[in-house]
């Protein structure tokens, strides 16, 4: 009995069998390759973070502390907390969730040669699609300075907006202080060329992408402002010498820096009453 290959029954059975075979084949393939693919994505994130730190050849796992920032408070995620670490990297991989996050913001800390650097993920929108990257920051005097930045994009125009992914553009951000005299976030890509020490040259023909970079930096870094300011204050307190010397020990002075120099000069005996110079 010959089968009628153009009958509806034959066609339906044919398609059902085909789809079941193909579907299970692809499902099997996708599941078995998933661990390797995830490892690639994770490795790429780690390499980008190390690049932002300026330590492209160093091993992420040996050097970097992972943390979360909520309302300016830093909590470390322990290395052996597999689920916690995974959650951080999952968030990095999910740009939408990352841009909407307001608490438990991922941050990476690298302590080397006595200096502490922080890397924050940044996400935003360019002209055609998402732009993202990592920015590395360090405390300096009374400001926060960019020590490195890596940026990538989904589909900016080659030669124009896509230049943000090149080393040439990224190098320009190095050493820029985040806040200006008025304490406002001041780093931006300025059309027509940098006008002050906080700005970098925008890309000719890539204005919309540069606007996106500006918004990305202001918004993403802005979320960490409380933390960065807090870290700034601590850095200041650590470095600032105690203002009191033994000669000028006074109640007033001891009140300001009692902790640091209490032992030296603020014991009760050491406090001398200020001499009244208006005795004449």
């Amino acid at each position, binding site marked *: 009995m010959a089968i009628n*290959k*153009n009958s509806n029954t*034959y*066609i339906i059975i*044919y*398609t059902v069998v*085909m*789809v079941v075979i*193909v579907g299970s*084949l*692809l499902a099997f*393939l*996708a599941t078995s*390759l998933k661990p*390797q*693919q995830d490892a*690639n*994505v994770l490795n*790429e994130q780690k390499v980008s973070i190390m690049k932002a730190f300026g330590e492209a050849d160093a091993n992420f796992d040996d050097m970097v502390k992972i943390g979360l920032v909520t309302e300016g408070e830093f909590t470390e995620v322990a290395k052996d907390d597999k689920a916690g670490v995974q959650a951080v990297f999952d968030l990095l991989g999910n740009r939408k969730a990352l841009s909407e996050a307001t608490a438990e913001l991922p941050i990476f800390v690298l302590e080397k040669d006595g200096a502490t650097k922080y890397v924050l993920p940044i996400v935003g929108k360019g002209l055609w699609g998402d732009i993202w990257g990592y920015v590395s920051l360090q405390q300096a005097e009374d400001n926060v300075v960019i020590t490195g930045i890596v940026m990538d994009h989904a589909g900016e125009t*080659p*030669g124009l907006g896509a230049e943000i992914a090149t080393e040439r553009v990224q190098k320009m951000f190095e050493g820029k202080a985040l806040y200006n005299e008025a304490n406002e976030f001041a780093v931006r890509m300025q059309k027509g060329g940098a006008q002050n020490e906080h700005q970098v040259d925008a890309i000719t023909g890539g204005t919309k992408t540069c606007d996106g970079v500006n918004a990305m930096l202001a918004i993403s870094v802005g979320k960490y402002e409380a933390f960065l300011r807090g870290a700034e204050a601590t850095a200041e307190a650590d470095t600032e010498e105690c203002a009191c010397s033994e000669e000028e020990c006074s109640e007033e002075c001891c009140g300001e820096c009692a902790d640091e120099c209490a032992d030296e000069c603020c014991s009760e005996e050491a406090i001398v009453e200020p001499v009244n110079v208006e005795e004449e």
Partner: protein
Amino acid sequence: MKLSKNFTNPLAANNPVIVQILGICSALAVTVKLEPAFVMGLSVTFVCAFSNLFMSLLRKGVPSRIRIIVQLVVIATLVIVVDQFLRAYMYDVSKQLSVYVGLIITNCIVMGRVEAFALGNKPWDSFVDGVANGLGYAFILVLVAFFRELFGSGTLFGFDVLARFGYVNNSLMLFPPMALIIIGCIIWVHRSINKDLQEK
């Protein structure tokens, strides 16, 4: 005799890109550097060869009313296989090729060969035809990428070549229109050699 002709024809005299003008869009997009062009060429060769093989094996059972859909399913499956493997084992390249791997599905060469050749020929012949057409495509891709990477970035496979002679990179070569112009030049050279291809 017939088999070897099957194999050599698509490489030169009946090249899918420069004679049949198929698969131009991906040829413009992935030829900035040699490495992605090379991988793309191999991917298309793989997809083309195996879609031809499978469709040839299925050719007697496929209901002719839905044969295009069946072709698409077979081709799409193979493309997903390639895409998944690239993502797992050649992550950097797969990022550079981005959507163009997925777009192999719509590459006219693949479906063109299945429809024109595999449905009417034996599996082994079809397989050879697929490999040859894929290689014909890959050859043009690599040729275009060679010129674009050499003059656009001064490198070949990422190694400095021209840069050490003080060559200033011509970034015009990195834009898609230059790929079209290079393909145009290749077609010009090819037709001046093969006079029978010239239209009167």
